[in-house]
């Protein structure tokens, strides 16, 4: 099942938006202006409505800069480090994230979708 419509509905309700404004490429923080309390509520709603286990740090790509700093310190390739941490994201998407990082928070709606599709309850952390 494609979780995009459910995620759209969740974002629209919590952020008081028209769902038609939301596309897979919409930035959750940069464009929709989601704040930390909104992200918390989005994570809880995804957990309940999609029946998935949610790790907020992973779902919202909260530790990207920390991972990159650690990779730099340990002489690990940045792409490999992010791919290892976020295995549910495709390699092209991880590369986009690296290129896009200087412009601000990179999280897009499609990343939430990828998490929901790639992280079944049995493997995601609480």
């Amino acid at each position, binding site marked *: 099942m494609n979780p995009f419509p459910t995620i759209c509905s969740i974002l629209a309700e919590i952020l008081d938006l028209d769902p038609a404004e939301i596309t897979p490429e919409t930035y959750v923080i940069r464009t929709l202006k989601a704040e930390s*309390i909104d992200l*918390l*509520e989005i994570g*809880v*709603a995804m*957990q*309940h409505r999609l029946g998935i286990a949610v790790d907020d740090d992973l779902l919202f790509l909260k530790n990207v800069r920390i991972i990159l700093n650690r990779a730099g310190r340990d002489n690990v390739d940045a792409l490999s480090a992010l791919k290892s941490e976020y295995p549910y994201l495709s390699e092209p998407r991880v590369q986009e994230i690296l290129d896009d990082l200087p412009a601000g928070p990179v999280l897009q709606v499609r990343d939430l979708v990828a998490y929901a599709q790639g992280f079944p309850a049995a493997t995601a952390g*609480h």
Partner: protein
Amino acid sequence: MKLDFRGKTVLILGGGCSIGLALTNLLLEEGLAVTATHASEDGKAAISRRFPELAGKSPWLDLGDKASQTSLAPLLESGVDYLVDLAHADHEVLLAAAGETDMDAYFQAHVANRLLLLKAVTRSMLARRFGRLVHLSSTAAAMPAPGQGFYGATKRAAEGLYQSLALELGPRGISSLSLRLGLVDAGRGERFLDKTDRRQDLSQKIVTVEQAAGTLLFLLSDQALALTCTTITMDAGLTAQKYA
């Protein structure tokens, strides 16, 4: 005054203690659904003896054992409206004499594991945009007796957690407060009174179990929802004077 309750389900941590049992009785009279946890066989037996209808329905929850929190998963999945936190183990030791293992275990249980539990409970509440947290604290949080360093410090830390949760989640319908009780003629307070034979001269400073339970009931009610992000004291004036 008739109290109103917009929620239906109550989770009491440490429900086998005297105050937990008295509060459960009041909540059941109000028509609320109560789940009272126990950390010991004595607590479990006390709940079953007093409330046969709750026999076999009391989850085991020991703050010192993180794995025991999984027993609450079904309740949190179905949703909980109120949390009353009475869970706190006593541990008297002079701080300068405390063992490292004791330190780690006590603070892990009463601060970190408590926060882990609160995280799960508030996430359950967030899904329905309503929740009320009431934490039973102690005047020892501000005025510990010698030997109560662990207890007082972790009570104070817990008060901080409850205050911050209310601050952060208030906009989403979750409120929270701590109630500091003074000398209660139950549990460790009863042991103190018996041991020191001070029941007579402290008789005016004792909070009864019924008073404590009745106050907790009020604090859970809709009428008390504006009492949030704060800590209040109920100690019959015990800590108000300079010299006892």
